[in-house]
């Protein structure tokens, strides 16, 4: 009796410590990334970084105002492409689960989700850069939008499927058409979760560099024109990080810090939205 109990306690203790060790191990890379980025980036970060334009090589100071604005514009364009299409496609998948079109779309979304980002960039280059002979914000937004699309489609579908069937029955029993039930009851019930899915997708594409390298390219000047090359934080960080100048390297660390901060903020927002959804469905 005591021996079994002792053995159980030892095994249990070992398993619990193994679990704890795995968690710590999994968190180490994140901790290291945050530590090094913040250590190098925070000292280089100041108000000028957000408000000033890049300075020429050799001149100290300056900021990445154009790149921050550029990333915001690119992500906005991407959301503009991907959110309407993604939500409508997600509704289709949730409403017509078993049709051949639905399984084809679902499969396509999953494949698209696995396509390397550089390939998505190449596609956007062929589709939106070559025909106009010009790098443009629109091409960059298109590339990011394509990357967002599968995430939004599948999140929308899954969250709509989570809405209890009894709500749909309730709406239909009151004489609502199927479309009305979807748009006035089912979609609103799932909306906080869908918005949080969109935020997660935005956070993911905001950190993409590869699809932008030959679509939106880069721009050393302030530009908000959608048909011209535009700066972005990620590409700016990339080019500053590989440059031989200490000053630019420092700026790259600061840029990385801002990126991580923005993505963290988006993720927190997404979590808050999810909590709200769960709160609404609590009995």
């Amino acid at each position: 009796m005591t021996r079994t109990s002792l053995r159980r306690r030892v095994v249990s203790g070992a398993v619990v410590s193994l679990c704890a060790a795995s968690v710590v191990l999994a968190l180490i890379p994140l901790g290291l990334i945050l530590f090094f980025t913040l250590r190098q980036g925070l000292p280089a970060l100041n108000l000028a970084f957000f408000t000033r334009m890049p300075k020429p090589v050799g001149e100290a100071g300056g900021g990445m105002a154009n790149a921050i604005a550029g990333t915001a514009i690119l992500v906005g364009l991407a959301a503009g492409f991907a959110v309407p299409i993604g939500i409508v496609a997600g509704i289709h998948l949730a409403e017509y689960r078993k049709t051949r079109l639905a399984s084809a779309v679902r499969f396509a979304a999953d494949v698209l989700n696995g396509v390397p980002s550089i390939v998505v960039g190449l596609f956007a280059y062929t589709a939106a850069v070559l025909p106009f002979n010009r790098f443009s914000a629109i091409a960059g937004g298109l590339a990011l939008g394509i990357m967002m699309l599968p995430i939004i489609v599948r999140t929308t579908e899954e969250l709509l499927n989570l809405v209890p069937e009894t709500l749909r029955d309730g709406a239909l029993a009151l004489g609502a058409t199927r479309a009305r039930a979807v748009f006035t009851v089912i979609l609103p019930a799932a909306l906080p979760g869908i918005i949080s899915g969109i935020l997660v997708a935005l956070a993911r594409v905001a950190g993409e560099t590869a699809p932008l390298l030959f679509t939106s390219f880069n721009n050393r000047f302030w530009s908000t024109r959608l048909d011209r090359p535009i700066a972005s934080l990620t590409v700016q960080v990339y080019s500053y990080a590989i440059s031989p100048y200490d000053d630019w390297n420092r700026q790259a660390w600061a840029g990385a810090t801002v990126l991580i901060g923005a993505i963290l903020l988006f993720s927190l927002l997404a979590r808050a939205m999810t909590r709200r959804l769960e709160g609404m469905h609590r009995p």
Partner: protein
Amino acid sequence: MPEVRIATGLRPRAPGPSAAPPGTASAALVPHVADEPMVRIEQLSLHYGQKPALRGITMSIPKNRVTAFIGPSGCGKTTLLRCLNRMNDLVEGVRITGRIVIGGRDIHDPSMDVTGLRKHVGMVFQKSNPFPKSIYDNVAYGPRIVGARSRSDLDATVERSLRAAALWDEVSDRVHESALRLSGGQQQRLCIARAIAVEPDVLLMDEPCSALDPIATAKIEELMEELKSRYTIVVVTHNMQQAARVSDHTGFLLLGELVEFGETATIFTTPRDRRTEDYITGRFG
């Protein structure tokens, strides 16, 4: 053809205003001579794929009365209820034969608009299913489908429906709060308010009290008694005491067959069919 025995006998309750002299109605379809039928079901059969769920059901449900369907789990009582507002249309592989006539119209007629039918035949579900919206928006959902837009009309409809569902006094100061904050019993009464906001002719209730405590159940039962003066109520219940308390007529279903249908008092005191008696006395089910 299944055997449908009809229980006749003296009505224990006061006859309705449309009382006809005994013996005038055709015995097969209208067993309750005192009552005007609201719903007539003729030879209704339903199959899920190859599996029969309802077999040749013929009955007529009287107007402004509470009619209860009882029977063991899986006997088809909920399926039968859901036929009345064609909610079974949503289920894949369902095949229906026979006729259902509500208020003089065949509900399977090709010219029948299903959403229109559901405005005349409201439904309350087993589990309360308020929309994640405010109390007000829940009740106003049906009227808005019909096209009600004026704020004052909607206000009046919401108040009238909540009063009719005996919920107004409890929520009048917070109709714009989320319906999900109400208690289970209040949510179910909200669903009743939502169903009657469009003034249906028939109110279907699918085990409306099965998830409620005895006090909330008593409130709903009381409500059914009040509502039957304006609506024809059809209720599915697992609970035989409930059927005995609230209903005027009771139908006993077994394996998709309507074994016996008649006055509740008769069914519960002198059933004609042995199977009814066995079920009611608790020998099975």
